[in-house]
């Protein structure tokens, strides 16, 4: 457990901390660097609550050693600032997706990753992309509807450009 100096870029800003490289990125973010957006749900990549992007790709921060992402760009929900993120978050609010809301940071990250890769996902594609995100409150029907709504909003906005 010997700490090392670890440098990364979090939400566009260079950040560094002294931590054992084996420490999961989730705890480096939450307890080392003050980012409370990604949540802790299982610690075993089973629930999706801790989802962040590393170099644009979604990863489960609870099982990603911080030492493995040195020098890479980490995006938490707090740093979502592109049109896809904005569309997803607006759709989430409009459809009142969250109940307790605890899983929702992870759900939103999952939805953003999906829409960046697939502009008009089918129900099956949504299921496929989102099945790793658990929600004990049962927001699933609204998650599905909000992803479609966000996709539509983005398509219309794109058509206007």
């Amino acid at each position, binding site marked *: *457990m010997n*700490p090392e100096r670890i440098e990364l870029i979090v939400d566009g800003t260079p950040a560094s901390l002294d*931590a054992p490289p084996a*420490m*999961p990125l989730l*705890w480096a973010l939450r*307890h*080392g660097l*003050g980012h*409370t*957006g*990604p*949540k*802790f*749900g*299982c*610690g*075993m990549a*089973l*629930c999706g*609550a801790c989802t962040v992007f590393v170099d644009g790709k979604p990863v489960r921060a609870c099982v990603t050693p911080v030492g493995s992402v040195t020098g890479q760009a980490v995006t*938490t*929900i*707090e740093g979502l600032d592109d049109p896809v993120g904005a569309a*997803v*978050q607006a759709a*989430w*609010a*409009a459809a*009142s*997706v*969250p*109940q*307790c*809301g*605890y*899983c*929702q*940071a992870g759900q*939103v990250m999952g939805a953003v990753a999906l829409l960046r890769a697939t502009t008009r996902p089918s129900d099956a594609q*949504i*299921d*496929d992309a*989102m*099945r790793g*995100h*658990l*929600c*004990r*409150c*049962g*927001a*699933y*029907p*609204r*998650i*599905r509807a909000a992803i479609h709504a966000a996709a539509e909003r983005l398509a219309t906005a794109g058509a206007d450009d």
Partner: protein
Amino acid sequence: MIGADGVVTVVSPKAEMGQGITTALAMLVAEELECRWEDVRVAPSPIDRIYGNIAVVVDGLPFHPDADGPLVRSMRWLTAKTMRELGVMMTGGSSSVRDCWEIAREAGATARVALLEAAAARAGVAVSECRASQGRVIIGEQSFGYGELAADAATRRPGRVTLKEPAAFTIIGRDLARLDAAEKARGAPLFGLDVRIDGMKYAAVVMAPTFGAVPTQVDTAPAPGVHAVFTLEPTGFGDPAAVVAVADTWWHAREALRTRGITWSESPHAGLSSEAILADLREAAREPSGLPFRSVGDTEEILAQATRVIEATYEAPYLAHATMEPMNATVRVTDGTAECWVGTQVPGFARKAVAQVLDFDEGRVTIHQRALGGGFGRRLDVDFIAQAAAIAKRVPGVAVQLLWSREDDMRHDAYRPAAVGHLSAALGDAAQPIRAIASHSASQAPFKSYSRRVGFALTAAGPDKTTAEGTWDQPYAFGAIRSTHAERDVPVPVGSWRSVGHSHQAFFVESFLDECALAAGRDPLAFRLAMLEAHPRAAAVLRLAAERAGWRADGTVVDGVAQGLALHWSFGSLVAQVAEVERGGPDGFRVRRIVSAVDCGLPVHPAGVRQQVEGSVVMGLTAALRGAVTVTGGAVVQGNFHEYPLLRIDECPIIETHLVASDAVPTGIGEPALPPVAPAVANAIARLTGVRLRTLPLRLPAEARV
């Protein structure tokens, strides 16, 4: 509270755990206040006796919901009065809107009148010349914003106020967006585990791996990044013995505990297993000697004489709450005072627990309420809060955040009790389908056990209504009924799990009624309706669900899809569901669609009601299809979501919800749509496969999976 900027802050005594109470409560206040919805915010209230929860305990009395004799009325009154005096601030029992239906509107109306009076005084006119609209008081051509009147209005004490008639509502009944949706979609730091305080430390625990074990050996030497390692005795609020590490990050604390070579004493309950517990419950449910909850007519006699008796035994396992946010609490003890940041359904009990652990006056303890990352009854318990206080006591002056891992959370829950129900019925004719029904069930007593843990004397002894609820309190007219429950004592902690006794009793009763209907060769819908003539609201809900689902009275399987039906009455609300099930998938069947019809009185926030129904259906399906906590060797087996799977989005059926239009006083909606899910699905499976599943979770035998 109204600020000079015109922003209206509604102080909510109810914890927001996802059920949307924040929004519904604000709507009640705003309706009477005549403010602009955009100006409304909600803040948690400090602990205050005025906010004690009355509805939840009055509902706990073992009277049939239709009963209204003088004795029943006076008992309800007496209990309500006791509750007011005890001032238990509790969010649970689907009671929040019911509890606040009048007082929240009165609060809004009182504030409106105070504002009118302030405006009248300022303009030098009579109050009758002023009217309130959209956050302003209008007097002829003149108008004042609420913000500019707020300071003066706050000094006024208007007398009695008259509330609007439902026809005049402009906010209640509207589908407004949830007030908390946007910030939750941003991952905002709302929850207990998002609390950050300068210089804080994080605590991890290893708790007794078997019921009642204590640590016998631990290496407590400090290590880099690790502040302290120590053992902790149970506080008496339900937490087991534990070894604790306090460190700079939670991960350091966890890692520190991994290498401590902790050994534990043998559990006094090392032989305890689910099989043995269920065998005992089966036997107990066979004995009609349990505590009688309702006895009308000569049930035993009719059953003994009847030529045709239907009989069946049903079983349900322990269930964990598995809120997505694991249990956590942050406590700081400084100079004889304590602060605690926590998401809890019971801030009053939380304060009491912290005070007792620290041996402080309650007045020296402050509870800072946080959003709850799921409650479902788990956060009625204060075990983890008491444990956090005991940890913080060992590191004075430092705020310590205790966080349980998922495994800690799942293996140290207060579970939905395992239960067995034995039902028998004498069939009758078309006019009286069931001449007599007997329901004998057996389980631990969840609310009594809970009451003992938190020290709530009112319900710590005597009959626990939650054990048998869902059997004897339903709207059906039976020729005769006898309902008993045998309470068992088992060292597995049990508590309130969303809809409590209803969660499994509805499965027993509604599966059984279906078996009776099929045995009588009748359509399960017509069979039930014949017993609901005295209960038009229940009949209407059932008809609505059947009509919207396209119910097939002949029970045929069309395009591979079979239907099943269930009705249940809980927390004052009626819910009927039709489940559609088809062949396929690893289980041999798949739930395609759940259509619900709901009568919860006047829906204050219809979108919120529908959302609660969706959530209850999903949670009910998880329980019906997957949920089981098992005990082996005195320990809970399941630790994480691979062993206790939750329904996923790709398994989530189409969920349709229809609300009955009503002007009746609003009743509960956080729980009532959960109980009918499992029986509706089981009834559909019986139609689809010919196999009657009487044990939860529903698993088809391999040969029936085709």
